[in-house]
């Protein structure tokens, strides 16, 4: 063995080099771990989370016109829309709407297909449940929107 590698071995040069990287990241500003339930993570504006349906803020009416484009666009066929036609105005309107989130993969194809921007994927992500039962959202739940959980220590 030549001298230089031997000296490196004796003085543990590679160990010190590695540890110097570790010590460079010791400053409290470098901490990146989020204390999740206490500290809410940052969520992007375009985040695709729990679905919700928009209502007209002035009248409280659903924006949905019952066209069923979202039901057609959904790859997993999770959306069921039923509609009826108004006998007077001959306009289509939505009668019921269900969204099964248990198999949803949040691809966002439903919100892209919606002509009235009614169905959208909101920023709520805390949707875990113990069973699949409560995962089929009806129109009331969808219009109410997500209810974020508050945690207290």
């Amino acid at each position: 063995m030549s001298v230089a590698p031997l000296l490196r071995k004796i003085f543990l040069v590679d160990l010190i080099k590695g540890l110097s990287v570790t010590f460079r990241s010791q400053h409290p500003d470098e901490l990146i771990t989020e204390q999740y339930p206490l500290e809410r993570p940052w969520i992007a504006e375009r985040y695709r989370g729990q679905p919700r349906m928009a209502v007209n803020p002035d009248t409280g009416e659903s924006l949905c016109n019952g066209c069923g484009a979202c039901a057609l666009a959904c790859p997993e066929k999770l959306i069921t829309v039923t509609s009826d036609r108004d006998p007077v105005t001959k306009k289509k309107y939505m009668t019921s709407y269900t969204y099964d989130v248990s198999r949803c993969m949040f691809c966002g194809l439903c919100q892209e297909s919606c002509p009235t921007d009614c169905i959208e994927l909101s920023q709520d992500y805390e949707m875990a449940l113990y069973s699949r039962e409560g995962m089929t959202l009806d129109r009331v739940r969808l219009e109410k929107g997500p209810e974020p959980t508050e945690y207290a220590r």
Partner: protein
Amino acid sequence: MSNSNFYDDAPVEAPGKTFLDSTEMVLNMGPQHPSTHGVLRVILKLDGEKVLGTECVIGYLHRGVEKIAENRTYAQFNPYVDRMDYVAAVSNGLGYCGAVEKLISAEVPKRAEYLRVILTELNRLASHQVWLGTHALDIGAITPLFYTFREREEILKIFEKYCGARLTTHAFRIGGCQYDAYEGFDREVLAFCDAQDPRLDEYEELLTTNRIWVERTKGVGILSAEDAIALGVTGPVLRGSGVRWDLRKAQPYCSYKDFDFEIPIGLTGDTFDRYVVRIQEMRQSLRIIRQAVAGLPEGPIMAKVPKVLKPPVGEVYHSIEAPKGELGYYIVSDGSTQPYRVRVRPPSFVNLQALDVMVRGRLVADVVAVIGTLDIVLGEVDR
């Protein structure tokens, strides 16, 4: 290593021999072994610690993605491709969208192509960071994992801001991109690139000269260039063996010919060379991202694509250079809204075949190193 004779006298399996000798034994590695990166099961035939042969048992994560494609429209299948190589979901989307665009002969706008390049190269960095962290962890170096995942988090934040999801992004649509760059996208990407360069040096400081790392990787899992080509291996595994083959240069797609970058190659084809190749690739990716951000043109991001996609009857094969190798999509259209057949050529599945060649005659501990260096994702192997 000094006792090189130990490796040389590994007996070649006699043809037709079915029973084990009294000194041989069979060991199941996986499917729950932490260093098989998922649910890979490797049946090892051992003589003491020496590996006489391997057999991979796959299919634990089979979800029938190719069959699902036959029951979905072209646009509906797009989110499923993200679930194959979930570490590099953006690359999967690029390959699939590119294949369908070839099928319908759609011209993707320049801005969309540049956005695609930026995101795909960011994804390549993220994929290589996962690889580096877990590969080093398998071999015993726990520290790089923390740093690589810290930087990957920044990439995932850019993805989340851009398309709303971190892992299974569904970032591209057939004909272009659904989302335009958000406010401050270029600034954030460039800031990430500038911060990433010294961090790559940090990874190298931790590993490249580290004695344990060098002894665990140098000369381990050697794959000669002839073997690599014969096995159909692609990506960094092929380039580590010294073959200068990169689809971004060989068959430029998605505006890659606009960018100036190099293809790093290894010399001997051992685990250390593949490590060096991937680290260099990350530097080249940063170079591409910088050029793409600087030259990001204005304009539309979506080509004129009909709402109901009915491609003409025909077939198409389109392949891209994913972080793990050549990712190809073969689509047969019968003229209806749904594909007649979709076949995926996943890089991990093909690269996994090299495992036997690389570990035969080596030690059990080297199997862990070699599985790590092949950089497989079982979601892609099994589909």
